[in-house]
């Protein structure tokens, strides 16, 4: 269970979202929607613990979130297996066989990651979520550069993850065909001109 209450967050010192509250129970997924620049990435980074919120509280996220960003953290000179094994060992969560199978990476296992196509790299990046063993997936536009089959693989992997009692926060524009709540972030856009205490002291 992840719960967020009365959260305000800022990007580059400028507030983007405020007064945001929601919760995601185990075995549930939440789809985040909203126009570009609304703060989806900032929200996911805040939940992953990479940046502190301006205000509000996040509960149940500590050491439980696996974060997937636009950049996959893939080293081109390492093979697919080596990339995955590295992250599995860092998170101390066991084998990579399930992850390789889920995204059909077995035929590519020995190839250097630098020789993969954009979509194949993305699949490798998503497979990384499986080897973290973390219950909450926070994913930022996970389907970029994936074809239809790969999107289906991804949806299947998320469904399986939910089936194991995990949960997921996904910022995406497309319909994944997953049974999930949808949260539109537009109403929580920070009021124009809201400032932090220092700049506010001039107003």
């Amino acid at each position: 269970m992840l719960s967020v209450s009365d959260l305000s967050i800022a990007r580059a010192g400028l507030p983007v979202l405020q007064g945001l509250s929601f919760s995601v129970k185990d075995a549930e997924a939440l789809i985040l929607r909203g126009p570009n620049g609304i703060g989806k990435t900032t929200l996911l980074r805040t939940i992953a613990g990479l940046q502190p919120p301006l205000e509000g509280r996040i509960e149940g996220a500590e050491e439980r979130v696996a974060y997937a960003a636009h950049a996959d953290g893939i080293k081109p000179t390492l093979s697919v297996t080596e990339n995955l094994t590295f992250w599995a060992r860092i998170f101390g969560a066991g084998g990579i066989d399930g992850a390789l199978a889920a995204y059909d990476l077995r035929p590519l296992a020995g190839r250097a990651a630098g020789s993969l196509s954009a979509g194949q790299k993305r699949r490798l990046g998503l497979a990384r979520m499986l080897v973290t063993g973390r219950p909450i997936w926070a994913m930022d536009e996970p389907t970029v550069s994936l074809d239809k089959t790969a999107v289906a693989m991804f949806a299947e992997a998320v469904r399986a993850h939910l089936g194991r009692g995990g949960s997921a926060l996904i910022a995406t524009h497309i319909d994944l065909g997953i049974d999930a709540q949808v949260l539109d972030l537009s109403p929580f856009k920070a009021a124009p001109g809201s400032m932090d205490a220092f700049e506010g002291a001039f107003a």
Partner: protein
Amino acid sequence: MSLWEYANPKKFLATSERVLPFFWVSAGLCLVVGLVWGFFFTPDDFRQGSTVKIIYLHVPSAMMAINAWVMMLLASLIWLIRRHHVSALAARAAAPVGVVMTLIALVTGAIWGQPMWGTWWAWDPRLTSFLILFLFYLGYVALWEAIENPDTAADLTSVLCLVGSVFAVLSRYAVNFWNQGLHQGATLSLDKEENISDVFYFPLLVCIAGFVLLFIALVLYRTGTEIRARRIKALRLRERAAA
């Protein structure tokens, strides 16, 4: 009424504007009186001749070069612990003043060293330490300039100032160990035999007071400028967000 009230930028600006004229005037008075007294109304030293008079610029600027860094260190600590923006901006404002003080100390040292030691530059421990301090200042200022987000810049420069202080002290000891110097010992401590005589001492004190007051005035003034710059930036951001 607590000191922390001045962490509010409005309050800080209002108060600093009220006290600034006093600091400007008294700094100017002390410097004029001290320097004129020192340059024209003290006897020549029996060994060093009239060259000794550069002491009235050299010693105060050298003291302020170090004091400015100490002030930046304190301001950085206040920012890291209590997150008062004015404190971070004061540290930022003090750095270029410290750079100039260090430069004055180095240049007057060279000018004084030429007739006394027969060389413009010697790798004397104190001169070398000031050169290293100068490099620390440059790095600190460059880091402030390089980072766009003001809070990030304040955090990073504060940590750099802390770490830099430790290494500056280490360097001081290392340099002492590396080369025993030409410099005379403490000039101003109260119990030393080699203390300079009262004739030179009193105008020097006035000059030091002048440099301290000038430093305070400059830092207050520059902090005000930094606050106004932040304000303009904030207002611009607000305009853009509203548009």
